[in-house]
């Protein structure tokens, strides 16, 4: 595993282009585009203000930079550096901006969710969509980019509108049986739309593309409901994480629950491997420091090293006592992600913040649990294989695969607190983001695997 040098960054704004060739990052009001392989700067654009949001167009030709404070969006072209485009939302303000899947339209949401403005880069046309709902996930595009579903609120009722993205024509418009719709999400095959209610009510509704209600599911009443929802990449399963600390898996045939995954703090099953991150004092680790070869001018040694130990069951995980009389209590399943092959599901229970559960979807049972020393900030699956990268806001990045776990110290001067990470689509590298820096982490060249194996042999 190799690391690039550390680059400056602000606002955790760092994104790989969809084609995987470029990497865009922001430093205050500057947008830097680098080549992924050489990491040399390809383009450098200067915006009018501090950038708050960036997004690549689907064809990797344009980058959108949003400056919400000024109500501005600036678009840059990678092919024609001199080309520019500036969209000003004026006094209406701006709270969100995103590309349409064709990469030629920009959807701007004005303040107070008054409307969504659709700006076309091809023609002068501007379209408006009224009554967008102010919610967590109000717009969603199908994977093929044909359709957009939009949550709306009119006359105190929730509606969903389905638009054809090619000409922004309304295809379907239907009301949903929700108290307060919070999110919508297309299934990866683009034929089913999952709609869920706010946390006050446990309700998932599934609509077909043509607006028919396929099924409604509710697990319980009178208690805080859904916290997170995720489709499996195969569209076979819908995982629903809720405030009761369970994940329920719905199937795509009957839309009924197949199983529910509890997240108990005590693990008794000896079949489950529990990896526990353990701090190791540097004295003990000195023998192992010969590998990798020390970099010239290396920074100070990390104060401590960490490694994974296999905890013997029964294991009790550290739980957080939630404050129940405050809004957004830290309980329930807040993070959910399927592996790209749909075989695994990674979850985090918010009142056991330092643990990541990995579930075997084929056998519908718990597969492994990783307990970190500090709360898990983010995790993301390798787009190519079942491999999970985890960061906890410390200077290490953690990887899990069915074969095992490892923790890697990010080299560099001072502490590189990894707050977020994102994979390159090839799965060969990932960007590790800290508050004001980022670096790339290259995984898995043949040689690296070999040395790692030798390293493993040396340890045992």
């Amino acid at each position, binding site marked *: 595993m*190799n690391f*690039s*040098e550390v680059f400056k960054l602000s606002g955790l704004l760092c994104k790989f282009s969809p084609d995987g060739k470029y990497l865009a990052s922001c430093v205050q009001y500057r947008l830097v585009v680098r080549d992924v*392989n050489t990491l040399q700067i390809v383009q450098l654009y200067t915006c009018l203000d501090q950038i708050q949001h960036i997004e690549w167009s689907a064809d990797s030709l344009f980058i959108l930079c949003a400056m919400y404070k000024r109500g501005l969006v600036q678009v840059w072209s990678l092919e024609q550096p*001199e*080309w520019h485009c500036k*969209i*000003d939302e*004026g*006094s209406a303000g701006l709270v969100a901006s995103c590309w349409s899947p*064709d990469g030629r339209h920009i959807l701007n949401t004005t303040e107070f969710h*008054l409307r969504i403005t659709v*700006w076309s880069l*091809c023609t002068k046309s501007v379209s408006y969509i009224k009554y967008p709902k102010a919610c967590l996930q109000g717009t969603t595009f199908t994977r093929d980019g044909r359709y957009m579903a939009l949550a709306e*609120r009119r006359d105190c009722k929730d509606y969903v509108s389905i638009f*054809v993205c090619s*000409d922004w024509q309304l*295809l379907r418009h239907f009301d949903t049986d929700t108290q307060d719709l919070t999110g919508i999400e297309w299934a990866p095959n683009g*034929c089913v739309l999952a709609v869920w209610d706010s946390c006050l009510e446990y309700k998932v509704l599934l609509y077909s*593309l*043509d607006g028919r209600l396929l099924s409604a599911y509710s697990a319980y009443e*009178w208690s805080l409901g859904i916290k997170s929802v995720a489709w499996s990449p*195969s569209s*076979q399963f819908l995982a629903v994480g809720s405030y009761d600390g369970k994940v329920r898996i719905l199937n795509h*045939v009957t839309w009924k629950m197949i199983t529910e995954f509890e997240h108990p703090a005590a693990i008794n099953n000896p079949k489950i*491997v529990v*990896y526990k991150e353990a701090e190791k004092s540097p004295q003990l*680790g000195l023998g*192992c*420091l010969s*590998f*990798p070869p020390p*970099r010239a001018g290396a920074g100070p*040694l*990390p104060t401590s090293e960490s*490694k*994974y130990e*296999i905890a013997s069951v029964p294991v009790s995980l550290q739980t957080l006592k939630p404050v129940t009389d405050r809004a957004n209590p830290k309980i329930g399943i807040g993070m959910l992600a399927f592996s790209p092959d*749909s*075989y695994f599901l990674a979850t985090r229970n918010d009142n056991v913040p330092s643990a990541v559960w990995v579930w075997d979807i*084929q*056998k519908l049972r718990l597969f492994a649990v990783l307990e970190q020393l500090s709360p898990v900030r983010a995790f993301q699956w390798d787009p*190519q*294989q079942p491999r999970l990268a985890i960061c906890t806001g410390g200077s*290490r990045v953690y*990887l899990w695969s*069915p074969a*095992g*776990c490892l*923790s*890697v*110290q990010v080299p560099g001067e001072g502490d590189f607190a990894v707050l977020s990470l994102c994979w390159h689509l*090839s799965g*060969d*590298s990932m960007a590790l983001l800290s508050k004001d820096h980022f670096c790339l982490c290259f*995984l*898995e060249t*043949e040689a690296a*695997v070999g040395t790692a194996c030798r390293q*493993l042999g040396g340890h045992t």
Partner: protein
Amino acid sequence: MGDWMTVTDPGLSSESKTISQHTSETKMSPSSLYSQQVLCSSIPLSKNVHSFFSAFCTEDNIEQSISYLDQELTTFGFPSLYEESKGKETKRELNIVAVLNCMNELLVLQRKNLLAQENVETQNLKLGSDMDHLQSCYSKLKEQLETSRREMIGLQERDRQLQCKNRNLHQLLKNEKDEVQKLQNIIASRATQYNHDMKRKEREYNKLKERLHQLVMNKKDKKIAMDILNYVGRADGKRGSWRTGKTEARNEDEMYKILLNDYEYRQKQILMENAELKKVLQQMKKEMISLLSPQKKKPRERVDDSTGTVISDVEEDAGELSRESMWDLSCETVREQLTNSIRKQWRILKSHVEKLDNQVSKVHLEGFNDEDVISRQDHEQETEKLELEIQQCKEMIKTQQQLLQQLATACDDDTTSLLRDCYLLEEKERLKEEWSLFKEQKKNFERERRSFTEAAIRLGLERKAFEEERASWLKQQFLNMTTFDHQNSENVKLFSAFSGSSDQDNLTVHSRQLQKKPHSMSNGSPVCMSKLTKSLPASPSTSDFCQTRSCVSEHSSINVLNITPEDIKPNQVGGECTNQKWSVASRPGSQEGCYSGCSLTYTNSHVEKDDLP
């Protein structure tokens, strides 16, 4: 009467009191009865016996004394002390013999009495101790009774308390339920109120929004604008089209097309899954039939008619099976037939397995009794011993031969020739004898050895037969596990049942990924090696490792929906042994069992697949 008592023995009278108390218990003999009377009468007299005695007879009153004694003795049934008078006038003479006899009798009586007294005393003692014992028992029991009574009272009290508590708890429960109900009502009312409020607020909010919208939008905000250098072409190169009814219709069409495609895709998948399941079913049926057919003859002979008919059904089904087209029929027409036949066969199989089970248990029972079977270890030890002996004998023979040869070669020598005369003949004779003896021994050994090897072979055969039987039994049991209950099949449905082929596919994909070098570090900006604090090796201990391995392999058998039929076909054609294994593994319910078998083959392929160290 007191005066009469002087007769009694002083020793006796001292203890007469105690004896008299127990008179009722002593056994009555005529003599003892008599003595008792004496004893009884002796009660009042106690002290001064001697003085009294001494006063009884003096020089002066010998005559009176004798007459008195005579009188007394006669009254007690003793013969008179006097001689029979010959004449009335003659004075009666004292008969000394009679006196002595009387004395003797009295002494004997006395001794008897003493003995009786002793007995009575010991009995008395015994009874006394018995009495004590009983008394203590009685008191103990009394105590026990008391304590149990107390306990009972305590328990009753506790019971009462518990009942009380129970009642309280019931009350509490009821209260709690009421509370819950109340709270639920409150929640519901709050929810409605909240919703109401929310609606009101939202209306207000909407009004405000509308207002704002009008204000912001109607102002003709100059600022709202797009400043663009030049318009870019559409990604698809086409021109934007006007929105017309036509486009609407086209969009509609397209949507339905997409939906239709999805449904078709799903149907295809389900069909494939169905086909695969049918194939498995067919295979199972075939195997069942082939399994059952050897048993056909036997059960027919002994089992009653009902199973006989079933078996004939099996034969019919076997006939039907040959018509492959049956499987292509839609399920509805075949379903009943199929399920019936399967059910029948299943029943037969089950009964057969049960029978086998019984047999096995019987065999197990018998096995312990069977003593003529030599255990393998014994057998081996024996053969080893024999071989050693043979070896020794051979060595001995060899040395003797050498000696013989030496003797034969040395015969030229003078001394030896001399010796030969005296010893050789004799020795030769002896050697010959020994030689023949050895030969015989050798022969014996050989024979024994042969018999042992034969026994070994027999044993091996027996073992093999047993192994076979066990294997078949296991197989049956294994089949037993693969029940076709609907619940199971429903679960399995989610992952399509056939998976081997798709897995093969995945593997190839993986390996391809591996071959492709992930990242080439070209003329690069400074890239630094990490200081890997790599303690990675939380990779589980070997066993765990294997487990995860096998899990991985299992897992790759999920049929991802994205696999198109074209992907699968070639693999099905190129059926390798692994493929076959997977086809077994795709049986619902039996996966666990099979994977363990498969994991071995898969570990090889995983060595390369393994990306994370």
